[in-house]
């Protein structure tokens, strides 16, 4: 099997896994890192798909700046999700 093309699939799989982890983790700091990882792998994927413009913007804004801003916001609030916030949204409760 040609492993230049299977790199794409590996990156997409890692992106999906880290996106699910970013939603599921109770530790918000780890969730922010997972979200930054999604952006980082997305920027590698953009580079492979020959869109270097988008790759640079995604790496700078998605991975570095928005991750840092999330971490600053977590520092000023709380680090862990608590149980009573884990209610379903209005679209389920209606």
């Amino acid at each position, binding site marked *: 099997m040609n492993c230049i093309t299977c790199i794409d699939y590996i990156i997409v799989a890692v992106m999906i896994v880290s996106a699910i982890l970013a939603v599921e983790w109770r530790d918000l700091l780890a969730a922010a890192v997972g979200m930054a990882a999604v952006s980082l792998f997305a920027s590698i994927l953009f580079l492979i798909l020959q869109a*270097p*413009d988008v790759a*640079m*913007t995604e790496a*700078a*804004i998605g991975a*570095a*700046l928005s991750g*840092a*801003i999330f971490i*600053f*916001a977590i520092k*000023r609030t709380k680090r862990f999700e608590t149980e009573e916030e884990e209610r*379903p949204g209005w*679209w*389920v409760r*209606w």
Partner: protein
Amino acid sequence: MVSILKRGLAIITILIIGYWLAQALAGIPFGQDKMLVGQYYLDHVKQQTGAINAVTAVVVNYRGFDTLGEVTVLFIASTGVGALLWERKKRRTAKTEGSIVLTTGTRLLVPFVILFGAYIFIHGHLTPGGGFPGGATIATAFLLLYMAFTMYEIPHKAFEKTEGLVGMGYVIVGLIGLAIGGYFLFDWIWQTWGWGHENIGRLFSGGFIPIIYIIIGLKVGTELSGIIDNMLKEGVSE
């Protein structure tokens, strides 16, 4: 029981919507040349705008008004952060300096990161990149400074003045185009004055694309640095 019913209903709704979206997307021929406008841009970009990077030519020249809107959106976002986190007195409250790796690495890297950001937006019409990635790269340099040193703050007066001036500059460039060529954001340097026709592919070409990208780069850099500054500082009570 009821919640299971509701959840099942929600899942069925999502499946139906997903099926419709998949049906709609299946009808689009991906990877084929069905769009005429893309080929038009690729054929005419050199003689109409003077830029070899067709992406930035579309973003700044053909669709310059959209980019002005994008810059405005970023300005509103920065203003919103500043308004939400407003305090009468704000100060940095970090207590520990960064580790020696972070401080030394920051001292070494910051000039080069700023230089690279400036390179990205000055050469926007030649190489991949442009004002938005360049400005974001410059903002990451200030983020590094904020993380490494406890007392560092951006020069607020200079940054606010730069931001306002370059924001006005974009509109002024557009209005000069309106005065010379008859419509807003007309490329007067390339079309009317005809500068840089003989050195396409070098730095001094591309009409007003480098000017507007320098404006956008400075604006994005100062605004994102301002957002970082607002997020990091905490209000102190007297």
